[in-house]
């Protein structure tokens, strides 16, 4: 990529200097032509003034001069443009070198051929959840798709509150009211949003110098965080802030006043809001495209190799290779038996041996059968991963 950037910089310089030269040479040619033309005009004028007595003096020299200039312009521009073209080609070669993947091998997929509307709705959901309601409206009217009103209203509510939190005044009231209203739900999820918001508000009051208000606020909201919630230490620590009220930013509490705290709070609120509505925390479309960016090159390479077999990648039951994805994109447990390398299924569930090692039922049965009678009591076998002995009846099903 560095080479490509350097190429572009070189090209930019080259292009500007060579086009200046070309333009200058054409200017020269125009000037020479103009001189020739003006001289002819003035000499023909003077001859007519002389009652046509003097013979016409053709301005051969001017014309020859002009022709030379035109030819010069021709050769100058030819040379410079050729040069520029060869530089563009050189840059093109570097680009070819940097990108070798042939995307066309996966382009034959017909998977989305009759799914334009489904895709449209997925995009629409994305626009709504990103909070660009005008964009969503534009897109839905351009494609005559119905705007999902309920989703729109939910996200409008979310963005209204988030916008208030992000605004310069950092208004927290609506967010706090929302969290208080859903306290049971949040507590059940172990979500500490309400406390985080109270802390933001408390610190905001302290920062504004409203010590009494802050104290009142603490009295109103903090007592509910009894000892078990594990917040008491933090609350005790927070209450010490009044000692430093006049010089907060040079106090041990200074780190609580970072600029990011609003953004973090807003994000936490948005995540809790989505969870409460049963909506995904991150845009599913965005997550899929990111996953696709990891998967596409891999699928491309493999499809390229399998091309002669005439299997179109999207028509298979399962991808031919594993696509490594970041942990944040793992949403379901997948158990692959370390012995057989097969994925567990309801008929072939993962089983835990007494030692805690897990393999699939089929592998387990194979191990139990494979034991030579006589060596050990029949049906007993050694775990493939540790010395502990096991048997079919000892193994227990697990549900991930």
């Amino acid at each position: 990529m560095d080479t490509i950037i350097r190429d572009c910089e070189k090209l930019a310089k080259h292009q500007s200097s060579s086009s200046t030269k070309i333009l200058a040479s054409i200017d020269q040619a125009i000037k020479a032509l103009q001189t020739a033309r003006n001289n002819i005009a003035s000499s023909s004028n003077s001859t007519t003034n002389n009652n046509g007595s003097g013979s016409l003096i053709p301005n051969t020299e001017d014309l020859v001069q002009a022709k030379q200039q035109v030819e010069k312009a021709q050769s100058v521009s030819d040379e410079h443009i050729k040069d520029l073209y060869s530089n563009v080609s050189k840059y093109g070669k570097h680009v070819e070198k940097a990108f070798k993947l042939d995307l066309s091998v996966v382009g034959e997929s017909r998977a989305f051929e009759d799914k334009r509307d489904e895709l449209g709705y997925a995009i629409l959901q994305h626009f709504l959840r990103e909070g660009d309601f005008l964009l969503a409206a534009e897109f839905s009217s351009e494609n005559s798709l119905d705007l999902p009103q309920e989703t729109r209203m939910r996200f409008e509510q979310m963005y209204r509150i988030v916008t208030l939190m992000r605004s310069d005044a950092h208004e927290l009231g609506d967010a706090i009211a929302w969290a208080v209203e859903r306290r049971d739900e949040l507590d059940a999820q172990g979500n500490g949003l309400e406390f985080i918001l109270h802390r933001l508000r408390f610190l905001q009051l302290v920062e504004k110098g409203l010590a009494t208000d802050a104290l009142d606020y603490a009295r109103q909201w903090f007592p509910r965080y009894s000892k078990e919630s594990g917040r008491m230490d933090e609350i005790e620590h927070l209450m010490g802030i009044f000692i430093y009220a006049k010089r907060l930013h040079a106090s041990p509490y200074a780190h609580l006043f970072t600029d990011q705290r609003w953004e973090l709070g807003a994000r936490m609120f948005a995540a809790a809001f989505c969870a409460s509505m049963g909506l995904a925390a991150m845009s599913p479309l965005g997550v899929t495209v990111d996953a696709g960016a990891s998967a596409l090159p891999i699928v491309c390479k493999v499809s390229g190799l399998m091309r002669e077999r005439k299997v179109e990648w999207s028509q298979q039951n399962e991808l031919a290779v594993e696509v490594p994805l970041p942990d944040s994109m793992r949403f379901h447990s997948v158990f692959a038996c370390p012995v057989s390398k097969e994925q567990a299924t309801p008929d072939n569930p993962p089983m835990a041996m007494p030692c805690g090692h897990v393999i699939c039922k089929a592998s387990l049965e194979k191990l139990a059968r494979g034991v030579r009678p006589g060596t050990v009591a029949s049906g007993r076998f050694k775990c493939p991963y540790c010395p502990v002995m096991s048997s079919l009846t000892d193994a227990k099903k697990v549900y991930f």
Partner: protein
Amino acid sequence: MDKINVDNMLAIEEPFIKVPLEQLRRTVRQTQKQVERETAAVSAELAEVLKNQYRLAPEEIQKTLDALIERLQTLKQGLEQVKQEESQLIQRSKLRAMDLNKLREFESTTQPEFQQWCRQRLDRVLIDYMLRSGNVKTAQRLVETGNLEHFADSSLFAQVMSIENELKDAHSCQGALLWCSENRSALRKIQCSLEFELRLQEYIEMIRARNTPEAIKYAKKHLSPWSDTQLPRIQRAMTLLAFSPSTSCPPYRAMFDEARWAALANDFRMVIFQLYNLPAQPLLHLLLQTGLSALKTPACLSSDPSEHNRNCPVCQTETLGKLAQDLPLSHHVNSNLVCRITGEKMDEDNPPMRLPNGYVYSLSSLTEMAATLDGKVKCSRSGQTFKLSEATKLFIS
């Protein structure tokens, strides 16, 4: 796993870099031809003037010179515009390369700057999709709100759309033929017969209009040059003269079919995409298809909604789930275990714990729960309660 695979990320960006490059290549080539043509013409006319200078009236010479001056001035204006265009394309190429180069600076996929970059890539991919599918206003808004002028190939798609619509709606080959003549050498290189198809269509239209003499003249002029490669089709085209537009004879009925226009529009699109290295399908399709496949697990297909995960794209049954329906499942040779409570990965650092009922959760989620529930844990799937000490650690190799 959180490391960024830069080479992989770059691999799919070929069109992003190549479009402005190809545009630049074409602009330079066309300028070269234009300058050559114009200067040569001016120089030839001057030579003519010089040769005949004694015979021509000064007024005539003057007139010729005026015309030549004007010609060069037009050329100069054109070049000034091209200069702008070229420098813009180079600038655009550089900005795009710099954007891709940012990838090398990111250290992990969890870095906010990286996520921001991915967000912008999504916008780029969406703009490409919108431009291709003719959602011009949506594309425009995405470009404006994201400040992505240099990352969108709006002008190229505007050209594609206008020529395509001319074919589809106005049933005219004019724009497409002009484009073919501008790109003749590139088309020859990829052995493209689009121009022949367009010529054939114009010829068919003449027959439809019962203008036989014109049609024959046209065929002589525009179809016969293709005899090297298209002879059987030219012969068939000539036979068409014997049929009326209402014929039911299959090959000739197909030639008279109005649907040929839509096919031509599509052919044109495929050819121009090929020339600019754009994939035939929008990148959004390719990314979504492979992405959904990579995310798809048997659990996403389960009829039991409790198996679904609200954060999983494939589990969005109303939207992306429908798109994923016929796509392949992901392939796994290694286990990937996700805690049902926290969504965190279960591995050596956060081992999976089996409750007596067989259900498995991560150690961290169970310890956290036990801290608030007096040493007890509740199975979120069965509702049963156990002591934390009853959970046994599992080993996944």
